[in-house]
C-alpha cells in the first residue's frame, strides 16, 4: 500500500497531505473507530471526515484523493 500512497501523495502534492498514524500507539484511532489496518480516513480542508474505508485498494485511494482535492 505504501507505494500507492506515496505515488498519490506526490501526484497531489500541495493539494492533499498524508499523515501516517500508528493505530497501536495513537489514540486518534479510537476517534475514528479504527478496527483494522490499514484504514484510510480522508479529511477535507476543514477537518471534517469525508471518507473512510479499510484496506489499501488503489482505486479507492485514488478516488479518495480526488474527492479530497475537490477534483
Amino acid at each position: 500500500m505504501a507505494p500507492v500512497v506515496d505515488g498519490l501523495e506526490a501526484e497531489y502534492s500541495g493539494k492533499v497531505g498524508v499523515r501516517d498514524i500508528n493505530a497501536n500507539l495513537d489514540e486518534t484511532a479510537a476517534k475514528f473507530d479504527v478496527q483494522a489496518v490499514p484504514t484510510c480516513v480522508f479529511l477535507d480542508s476543514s477537518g471534517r471526515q469525508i471518507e473512510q474505508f479499510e484496506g489499501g485498494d488503489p482505486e479507492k485511494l485514488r478516488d479518495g484523493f480526488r474527492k479530497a482535492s475537490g477534483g
Partner: protein
Amino acid sequence: MICPHCKAETSDMMNVCELCGEPLNNGVSQPYVEAAPGDATAQVNGPPGGAAPSEWPPPDTGLSTSGTARPAGKARRGSGAGRPWYMSPWPYLVGITIVAAVAASLFLLRPKVKAYPDLLVNNQPTLLNFYTDT
C-alpha cells in the same frame, strides 16, 4: 300560467310561481276565471280542450297550496359565536407554531459532524493513513 295564489303571470316552464314561490300544478295551467259580479254560478273550468270538469282540479300531488313553501333554513346566529373556524386567526397561529417547532427541533437535532482540524497537514485536505508496525 297564472299562479292560483297570487294571480301573477309566470312562465309555463316553472314549477313554482316566480313571484310568491307557490307550487304550480306541474305545467297544468290553472284557470283563472273572473266571476262576473253577481254571478253565483261561475265555476272553475278545466283547461281548454283538456280534462272534463269532473276531473278538475287535478288530484292532490302532495304539494302545499297554502302559504309559502320555503324550506326553513338554519336560524341566524348572533355575530361572533357562530363564525366558522377559518375566520379566526387561532387555527393559523397554532399551525404556524407547530411548523416552527418542528423546524427548530430538526435544526437542533441534526447530526453534528465532528471536525479534526488539528490532524490536517498544512491546513489542506489530508489522508489519515492508519497502519500498524506488527
